[in-house]
């Protein structure tokens, strides 16, 4: 039995106090002795050949310490290629830090300037003579595949990065026998993470010891320890990556970037600290972008509205190169595997084409693939409801996998241990007052006010094992590790590989450990984000902090508990099994009576180990690594609803309210879980209504500043009401699953259904995101 004194409670985050006091410790804030600042000369063109690159004037500029080009920097770094074996046949051109001969997107770094200040480095950038022979850029994914279109880069034989098809044997028959078929084509815009703290890195190589320390704003420090060691030929124990406070990551900061690699290389070359902080303009043309899909899809139903099959074709546009080490294929791969996931749908065909073009690379970003699969599925379900004259709730009741029908395998092969779609749907209906909202909607339409209600069921992939990347050869850890120890004064310290970017990782780990050791969470100090002081692990990606990190901490805590009880048993001449930990002390299990304090255990084990029996382990330190077993992933499920008002004269939308019912298994901290969901929802609503990286025909991003790229702001975002179902996974003792991506997974889908519900009386539809006033007015025939 797990003690539940603190697991399940809304503990506040201790580390929030530092931020509230202005005492955050971000890489951006770091200044080291002899540190120099990097700025990059970037290609102004989307594609071309470098004809001339003359850095001599820049090298002489005030404050400049060194200028590097591909010729002088790239040789110390092994090239990297963003392909994985389990994506059979995928290809991508090898990359290195600075462009070699050819530029592949507008923003591609060509030269690196190191100066005493960033301002001086930027001054010198203006002195670099860069002549590029413009070549025809490939800017559109469909056009990229047309015969005769130029190749996006050298080193590939076509602009198709990867193609795959999933198909069940009964697909054609299902469509042939269908009473109803609905179909639509969708366009999901390209958007980007816009973490408020941009990418930041300070690399500090000490040639006297051969020690490389990289302060890196990332969610995956161990991955980068491995990347730096391998690409630069260093022993990994001489590479220390420290990720202190990170100002947002969301998947964007776990990819290998040219600039970070160049900063490490420059520090190796110069033997002094080198700092790079992307400014916002650079962020827009060098951070990974996300999504950018065109999907054609159809859904077959019988006469009763039972979903028989879906047939989906996804073309996703990933930019000039596939990211390393996770590739840019994972997103599309999840899109085609998550289609129809909440439903009993027996047959399916999903075709995926991953296509290059001369733009910034796209890759994993919060809720990888989920928003696309969810939006397509749920839009078609709503279209089906319309065609069959069923209420959107009714059609979902008819098709969601029954709560007692688990385990269940989806048509795409995903295995679900136990989900709660119907309970979630019922709860959603209740908390949103669905029937009253429908009545209000009908009433308001008479007054010319058009409101829409949109619903979207979803599943989310969490707690991934090695099936995600490891099987494809990626050196991405699927296991995590923790060291829990009792200090000489009887306090607890936990060093763990999962990392914190504000989601509350350290707090929930403290809660889990506290419950194993009978202490309070504030007695447990948690250390994360430093490869020298914490065990190696996957850290934070694909929703694993609570489920995998929590389980690791739980098991480590239990090991330490056993050690403590063994020492206590020796000291007290009692059978350890008769003892327990509670209230910061060792107690008699039967009576709860205090026997000896943890401080006393710490004192004896540390200062008087001679008084313990021979062979008694006095280390008071437990190490535990844990990799998920059982199901390849622990899926969560939930449902969201969006209430939107559309001004049918202006195309302007107003988000009135949003609801989420979520089942992430065992909830460790309700306060933090709800805020993960809220933040995730808004991260899904942003690209549904506002966020889009816009490009012109030449491959130039035309809105690459925070004045022109519209992020979701407080004035436009709705209040979000949340309820829970709790179905713990039986794969772990803790029973927790992930929750970080659930909000983002379905918010846009619910919103698109809501807008289309509002537009329905006018016979208008929208199937492109973001749903801008222009697109809505176009749908309405006003433009």
């Amino acid at each position: 039995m797990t003690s539940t004194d603190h697991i399940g409670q809304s503990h506040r985050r201790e580390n929030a106090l530092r931020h509230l006091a202005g005492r955050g410790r971000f890489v951006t804030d770091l200044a080291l002795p002899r540190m120099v600042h990097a700025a990059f000369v970037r290609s102004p063109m989307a594609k071309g050949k470098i004809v001339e690159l003359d850095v001599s004037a820049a090298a002489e500029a005030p404050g400049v310490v060194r200028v590097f080009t591909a010729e002088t920097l790239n040789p110390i770094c092994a090239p990297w290629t963003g392909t994985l074996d389990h994506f059979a046949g995928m290809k991508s051109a090898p990359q290195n830090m600075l462009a070699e001969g050819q530029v592949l997107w507008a923003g591609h770094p060509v030269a690196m300037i190191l100066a005493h200040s960033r301002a001086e480095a930027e001054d010198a950038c203006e002195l670099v003579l860069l002549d590029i022979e413009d070549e025809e850029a490939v800017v559109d994914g469909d056009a990229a595949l047309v015969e005769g279109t130029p190749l996006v880069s050298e080193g590939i034989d076509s602009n198709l990065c990867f193609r795959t098809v999933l198909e069940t044997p009964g697909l054609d028959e299902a469509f042939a026998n269908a009473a109803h078929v609905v179909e639509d084509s969708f366009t999901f815009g390209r958007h980007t993470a816009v973490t408020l703290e941009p990418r930041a890195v300070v690399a500090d190589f000490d040639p006297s010891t051969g020690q490389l320390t990289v302060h890196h704003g990332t969610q995956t420090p161990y991955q980068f320890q491995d990347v730096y060691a391998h690409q630069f030929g260093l022993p990994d124990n001489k590479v220390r990556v420290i990720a202190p406070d990170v100002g947002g990551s969301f998947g964007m900061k776990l990819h290998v970037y040219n600039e970070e690699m160049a900063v490490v290389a420059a520090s190796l070359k110069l033997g002094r600290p080198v700092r790079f902080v992307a400014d916002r303009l650079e962020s827009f043309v060098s951070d990974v972008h996300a999504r950018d899909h065109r999907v054609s899809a159809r859904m077959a139903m019988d006469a009763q509205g039972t979903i028989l099959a879906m047939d989906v074709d996804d073309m996703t546009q990933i930019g000039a190169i596939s990211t390393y080490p996770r590739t840019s294929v994972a997103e599309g791969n999840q899109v085609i595997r998550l289609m129809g996931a909440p439903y009993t749908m027996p047959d399916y065909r999903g075709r995926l084409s991953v296509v290059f073009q001369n733009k910034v690379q796209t890759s994993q970003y919060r809720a990888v693939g989920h928003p696309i699969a969810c939006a397509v599925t749920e839009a078609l379900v709503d279209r089906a409801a319309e065609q069959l004259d069923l209420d959107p709730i009714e059609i979902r009741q008819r098709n969601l996998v029954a709560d007692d029908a688990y385990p269940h395998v989806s048509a795409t092969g995903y295995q679900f241990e136990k989900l709660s779609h119907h309970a979630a749907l019922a709860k959603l209906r209740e908390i949103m007052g669905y029937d009253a909202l429908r009545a209000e909607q009908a009433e308001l339409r008479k007054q010319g006010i058009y409101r829409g209600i949109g619903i979207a069921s979803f599943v989310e992939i969490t707690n991934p094992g090695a099936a995600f990347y490891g099987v494809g050869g990626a050196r991405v850890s699927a296991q995590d590790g923790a060291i829990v120890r009792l200090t000489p004064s009887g306090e607890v310290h936990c060093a763990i590989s999962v990392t914190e970017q504000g989601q509350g990782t350290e707090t929930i780990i403290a809660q889990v450990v506290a419950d194993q050791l009978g202490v309070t969470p504030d007695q447990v100090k948690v250390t994360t984000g430093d490869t020298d002081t914490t065990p190696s692990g996957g850290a934070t990606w694909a929703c694993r902090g609570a489920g995998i990190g929590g389980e690791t901490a739980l098991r480590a805590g239990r090991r330490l508990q056993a050690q403590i009880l063994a020492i206590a048993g020796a000291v007290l001449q009692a059978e350890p099994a008769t003892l327990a930990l509670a209230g910061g002390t060792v107690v008699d299990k039967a009576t709860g009576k205090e026997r000896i304090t943890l401080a006393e255990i710490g004192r004896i084990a540390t200062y008087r180990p001679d008084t313990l029996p021979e062979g008694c382990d006095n280390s008071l330190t437990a190490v535990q690594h844990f990799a998920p077993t059982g199901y390849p992933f622990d899926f969560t499920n939930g449902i969201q609803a969006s209430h939107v008002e559309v001004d049918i004269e202006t195309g302007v939308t107003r988000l009135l309210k949003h609801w989420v019912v979520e089942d992430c298994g065992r909830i460790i901290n309700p306060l933090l879980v709800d805020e993960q969901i809220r933040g995730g929802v808004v991260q899904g609503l942003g690209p549904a209504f506002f966020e889009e990286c816009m490009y012109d025909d030449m491959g130039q991003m035309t809105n690459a500043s925070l004045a022109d790229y519209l992020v979701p702001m407080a004035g436009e975002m709705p209040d979000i009401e949340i309820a829970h179902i709790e179905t713990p996974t039986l794969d772990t003792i803790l029973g927790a699953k992930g929750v970080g991506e659930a909000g983002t997974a379905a918010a846009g889908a619910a919103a698109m259904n809501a807008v289309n519900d509002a537009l329905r009386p006018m016979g208008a539809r929208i199937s492109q995101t973001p749903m801008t006033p222009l697109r809505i007015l176009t749908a309405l025939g006003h433009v």
Partner: protein
Amino acid sequence: MKSPAFEYVRAESVADAMSAYAEADGDAVYLSGGHSVVPSLALRLQAPALLIDLSNIAALSGISLHDGWLRIGAMTRHVQALKDPLIAAHAPLFTAAAPFVAHPAIRNRGTLGGSLAHADPASEFPAAAVAMRAELEIASSQGIRRVPADDFFVDIYETAIEPGEVLQAIHVPSPVAGQVIGFDEIARRRGDYAMVGAAVQAVSRGSGLEDVSIALFSVGNHPVRARKAQAALTGRMIDADAIADAQAALEDDLDPPDDPQFPASMRLHLARVLLGRVLANLEAVA
């Protein structure tokens, strides 16, 4: 995003400022609130040798009433347009426009004069100035002149201010009995530049509207006076027909820019919708 190097001088008088400008051979930029100049420097869109700070010049500040005109010093902050009772009473379209201008911290520092001199075609205060028939007081080495707002806004980011001249103040004629105003805009997010905006002023008499003044913004290279729409409303009571006629007249009044992200037809459509809404909600101010 660090600015290129420049020299800086804080001028104590308009004459000081203008002579500093002359000494720099025109390779200088005046700095008032800095909320357009500083970002453009950080973006390296311009690289003047000298920045001349106008914030300490007494002649550019102050709000006072003279002979039926309100004089608003060019350094008056946006937030004062929102809160100052004299502006609310005598230049009410500035007060009505202010909540739409950016965000609280920007309004704390941005200046009315800076906004007018910058002349962003999507910005609110220039259109309010046109609709109120304001006059702009410009200092040059030859002396001071007043330019009607209609003649002040010349093109995109271009005004009647000649190089080296300083916008000193905005003069707004006080409202007359029966004056009504309306201001609104359609923007993607609160505080964003408008997709389309409208500033309207008129005098409501028993017989109908007189002295109708309509300035639309974000529909052309500068605030656009909608003369045909004004004519369509003159002498008429505000009703559905009058509004429809004014909306229809915009076809002739406007020639919006065309852009794939924002087609001319959309701007025209939005301008019609917005004008209709503003006209239906005119408020009495005197």
